[in-house]
């Protein structure tokens, strides 16, 4: 029909116009991503292939393979991240569970206390741990006066201090998605389990825990990935005894002014992180990390 054709033309034009408009509206965002993400990361890649003499070379990567110390640094980084994540799960999951069972008003209060450290400077919190954990610090003094141990224990400038600080700072990143997943679990499901003959313990392990795992995976992944690139806290509390990739990057720049070597480390760390995320994404929906659950 002739009249139908006329409208078809007009409608097609409208469609094209709308798409152009949408593209126009999203262009600032695209530009922003380009400027703050694509260009710097591209530059990072480029610099990592520049040798000490300013020429294109693979020496930065070769060094990483040939020198054992680099390998050790990556192992340490992954080991600390894994430990910190495990500790966050052990502390954060029960806490999130506890909060999810509280009446909303009290749970919100608890949530504020969980989030409170977020609003304090990372550096301040890290130095606070330094003060608390040092040889003549509050923790040692109290423990000794309570008779928990006799001699002051070394709790900073080593793995213990690093882990304590990192876990403290990472905990909210685990609690938030876990809590959000737990809040979404329909309480009737637990009633149903109980009605069907499950003891409270059985009901927890067969119904509640499996349904909370998307949040747990999301939180654990977030903590792990953030730990991989963590700098301030391990640097201060590790006291140079615990070397992670991020610290090596800093020393490469500050001590040796070797941008190429630092960039290569960055590229490898980035690649490994993306790899971890990619593997994880095959098992769970990454949208969970945003805290919205599924």
């Amino acid at each position, binding site marked *: 029909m002739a009249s139908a054709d006329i409208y078809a033309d007009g409608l097609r034009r409208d469609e094209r116009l709308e798409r152009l408009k949408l593209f126009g509206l999203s262009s600032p965002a695209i530009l922003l991503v380009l400027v703050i993400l694509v260009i710097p990361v591209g530059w990072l890649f480029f610099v990592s292939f520049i040798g000490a003499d300013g020429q294109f070379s693979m020496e930065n990567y070769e060094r990483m393979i040939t020198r054992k110390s680099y390998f050790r640094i990556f192992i340490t980084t992954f080991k600390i991240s894994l430990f910190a994540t495990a500790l966050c799960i052990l502390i954060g999951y029960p806490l999130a569970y506890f909060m999810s069972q509280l009446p909303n008003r009290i749970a919100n209060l608890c949530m504020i206390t969980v989030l409170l450290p977020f609003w304090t400077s990372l550096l301040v919190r890290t130095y606070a741990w330094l003060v608390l954990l040092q040889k003549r610090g509050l923790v040692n003094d109290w423990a000794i006066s309570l008779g928990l141990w006799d001699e002051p224990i070394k709790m900073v400038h080593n793995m213990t201090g690093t882990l304590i600080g990192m876990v403290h700072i990472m905990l909210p990143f685990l609690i938030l998605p876990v809590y959000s997943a737990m809040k979404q679990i*329909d309480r*009737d*499901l637990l*009633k*149903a*389990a*109980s*009605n*069907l*003959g*499950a*003891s*409270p313990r*059985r*009901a927890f392990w*067969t*119904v509640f825990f*499996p*349904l909370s795992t998307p949040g747990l995976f999301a939180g654990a992944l977030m903590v792990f990935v953030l730990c991989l690139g963590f700098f301030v806290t391990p640097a201060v509390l590790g006291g140079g005894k615990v070397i992670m990739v991020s610290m090596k990057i800093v020393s490469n720049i500050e001590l040796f002014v070797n941008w190429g070597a630092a960039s290569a480390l960055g590229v490898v760390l980035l690649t490994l992180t993306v790899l971890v995320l990619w593997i994880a994404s095959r098992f769970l929906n990454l949208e969970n990390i945003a805290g919205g659950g599924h």
Partner: protein
Amino acid sequence: MTDNIQGALPITARNITKTYGKVHALDDVSLDVKSGEFLTLLGPSGSGKTTLLMVLAGFTRPDQGSLKFGDQEMIRTAPHLRDVGMVFQNYALFPHMTVAGNVGYPLRLRNVPMPEISQRIEKALETVQLGGYGTRQIDQLSGGQKQRVALARSIVFEPRILLMDEPLSALDKKLRDRMQIELRHLHEKLGMTTVYVTHDQREALTMSDRIAVVNHGRIMQLATPQGLYEQPANRFVADFIGDSTFLPVERHGDQITYNGMPLKTSHPVPDAASLVLMLRPERVRLATKTTKTVNEFQATASELVYQGDSYLMYATMPDGTEISLRGAIRQGTVAALPKIGDHVTLALEPSDTVLIDGGDV
């Protein structure tokens, strides 16, 4: 499946009270459910019907009372040890398990051997007409199918008591009507004592052996569907079950009068301070000729609604009350219907003349 049930259990609830703050959710409720009976708790929202069901299931701990399944006292027994099946309003199916996983869940908890589990899952699914659906995921099911899975899960371990909390309220009307009949058949087949909660009076009338009408945490009346509809114990029940209008009547000794006119009734008159006459729309009819055996009222037609198979007429009574009456429409009767404003004579059989306690409950 019927062969394995060692007979259904009667439920005996005595003096069950539950208060939330100052509100009596349950006010000294006593209830006997006969073995194998289909009993419905019917009431408006907030009446306490669900609270009573939750007490039976063990999810709500009452302040006082006694609850027996058969001879066994259950009031302090934990829910997971009560061995009653329950269908939840929103089905409460485990989303991380398949259909078979859900239905087999109570069997796995009871350490039933694996081959028997799969056998019984399939049998239960067939009972609810979902044979072969075992491997489906829960989110692949329609509302009606979820309903059936929930039902299969609650009967697969052969509980001798089955509780249902508004199980059909999330379904569309057509499916709901069909499920009502199906649930009824299933109950006849399995024979377990069933307590069913609903706010839908038609559903209650369709399915139940007996209905307990609940309001303000008390049982207003416990009777068969017919008893409830024909002989409501009080104004609340009469109002809640079916459509009804009430006319104030007076008592003069043995004589009951409306607007000075004596009423003939074939039912006993309750011994109450104030009485009302209950009028059901389908029981009042337009009088064609005067007879001495029926009660007659003079009224004015104030509204007439043509509904295809029937008509609905509103008529203003001499005391100003507006009542409704419904009649079938057959060939030729449309033209004979009165017009708005016409004077009409209404007739009510003595057997339909039901007087009830007009006091508030």
